[in-house]
């Protein structure tokens, strides 16, 4: 069956980069691959490109399906397609798997050319700054000098913000959704618990579990279960599961409540397909992101060189990336007299709301994206 407004069947591509990349930590990646997908057509003056930055567990597969029998579309398919809020009739949309990811871009699971073995524990720790630098190399590869927009939610929003700070001349608009200018101590604490669950798993082997033919599944599973709790609001969990039992109380530690089986299911599913070393590094990139740090904690100073126009969006029930954090970004932009709009969406879903097709939320994105000017059609 033909899906309405879908980008249809898509295929990933790989860009190979031979030049060594020096990371913020000082470590050097001698060469690397970035796997990406594109939707829509790049116009003649290459002014209609929109980069989608993914969050913790996202990938380059943002929209469409790999085959007509593919069970699930890309992770932000509800947003992207012909006549969807991010309209592929107008924009050329790029999804990329971040460096250190586990879906095709070079990461801990890739072969280290120096040893012929998987990188494992030796794979460097990456930062949001490093990702954005690598994304500019992908833009170069695609012949794009300036992006019409960078769009990201959560950790993806941090990348969008970083683009405007580090490469102001290369991005016209930033859509920073359910994000923050840095993580609070409480937010970092969740990451620490997640990492400890992975690192203390006996099958972690200091990060070199590939050589042992095992994966630290139970650690990754617990990390994901914890994450899921923080992505939902208390109300959303209450509405979805409440205190519902699957059957009756059995006086056991089995998954008796529906919430428990949901978390276990999500944890199992994730642990079966995601790489633990990637998870560790993604959470660390979140922790380290703090553009105001070099400016004595003054975000207004950190955003002084920003020229992009901004849409900042938060969700009322998002307690992990609360509206107050988004308002800090808005304030710093206002202090610098930048062009910015801010929407605080009333939503029950918590942090996960940024992925939901809420009509008002989508209307916000649609109207902002409609106003973005691009050159003639290809």
């Amino acid at each position: 069956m033909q899906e309405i407004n879908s980008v249809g069947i898509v295929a990933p591509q790989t860009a190979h980069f031979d030049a060594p990349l020096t990371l913020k930590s000082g470590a050097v990646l001698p060469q690397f691959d970035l796997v990406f997908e594109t939707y829509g057509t790049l116009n003649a003056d290459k002014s209609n490109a929109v980069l989608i930055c993914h969050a913790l567990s996202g990938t380059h597969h943002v929209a469409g399906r790999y085959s007509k029998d593919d069970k699930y579309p890309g992770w932000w398919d509800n947003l992207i397609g012909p006549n969807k809020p991010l309209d592929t009739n107008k924009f050329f949309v790029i999804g990329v798997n971040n460096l250190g990811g586990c879906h095709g871009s070079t990461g801990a699971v890739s072969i280290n050319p120096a040893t012929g073995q998987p990188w494992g524990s030796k794979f460097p720790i990456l930062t949001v700054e490093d990702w954005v630098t690598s994304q500019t190399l992908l833009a170069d590869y695609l012949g794009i000098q300036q992006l019409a927009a960078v769009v990201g939610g959560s950790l993806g929003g941090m990348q969008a913000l970083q683009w405007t700070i580090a490469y102001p001349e290369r991005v016209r608009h930033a859509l920073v959704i359910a994000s923050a200018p840095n993580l609070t101590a409480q937010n970092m604490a969740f990451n620490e618990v997640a990492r400890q669950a992975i690192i203390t798993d006996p099958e972690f082997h200091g990060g070199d579990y590939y050589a042992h033919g095992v994966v630290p599944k139970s650690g990754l599973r617990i990390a994901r279960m914890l994450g899921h709790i923080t992505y939902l609001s208390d109300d959303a969990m209450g509405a979805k599961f409440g205190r519902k039992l699957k059957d009756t109380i059995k006086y056991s530690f089995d998954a008796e409540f529906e919430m428990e089986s949901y978390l276990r299911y999500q944890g199992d599913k994730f642990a079966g397909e995601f790489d633990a070393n990637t998870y560790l590094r993604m959470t660390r990139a979140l922790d380290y992101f703090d553009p105001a740090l070099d400016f004595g904690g003054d975000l207004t100073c950190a955003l002084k060189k920003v020229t992009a126009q901004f849409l900042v969006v938060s969700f009322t029930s998002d307690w992990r990336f609360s509206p107050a954090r988004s308002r800090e970004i808005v304030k710093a932009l206002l202090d610098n007299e930048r062009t910015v709009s801010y929407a605080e969406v009333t939503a029950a879903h918590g942090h996960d709301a940024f992925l939901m097709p809420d009509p008002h939320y989508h209307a916000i994105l649609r109207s902002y994206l409609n106003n973005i000017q691009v050159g003639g059609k290809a």
Partner: protein
Amino acid sequence: MTVTKQEFEKKFGQEFRHDFAIIASWLPFGAKVLDLGCGDGALLQYLKASLEVRGYGVEKDDANWLACMSSGINVIQMDLEAGLSGFEDQSFDTVILSQTLQAVHNTEGIVREMLRIGHEVIVTFPNFGYWRNRRQILTGNMPVSKSLPHQWFNTPNVHLCTINDFDQFCESGNITVKERLVLTDNKPVTFMPNLMGNLAMYRLENTQLK
């Protein structure tokens, strides 16, 4: 160059508002303006077109927010009552509260915040002392009119006041009234404004901050 009535109506497909033109006359060209409770953004759109203001609107209503965005107005979604700490001291040329004063709870606090943020403040509100309102009270009902369109049971208005009330409020709060204009049916009223005037327009500054 200000936009004429005809040009405005042709350009924006909406009725020309005399109060908008007066607000524009109180602003320098290219002013940095904050419009609190900006509604659908009509005023900012007018000021942008006529004076190329660098404008930001503050609006809490979802539908109004979208209307602003569609017109290309920068709009910050927040509730005025929750405070304006997101705006620095004296960071705007002018802060405007256009026909919203009567609907806010923390009236005094918001006027103080406006004076903190803006070099100048413009406040407009429907004059409850207007004779047509008084007549309805005398005949025993709460006023309902074009400028006060709601019934008593569904009105968003909580702090209706008269021109005399607002004058006293400014005087007791050490707020300098730089200019005051009163309108009825888009025409200036100078004779007994508290009785004859429908819309009150104030240009304020905070003497304490100067």
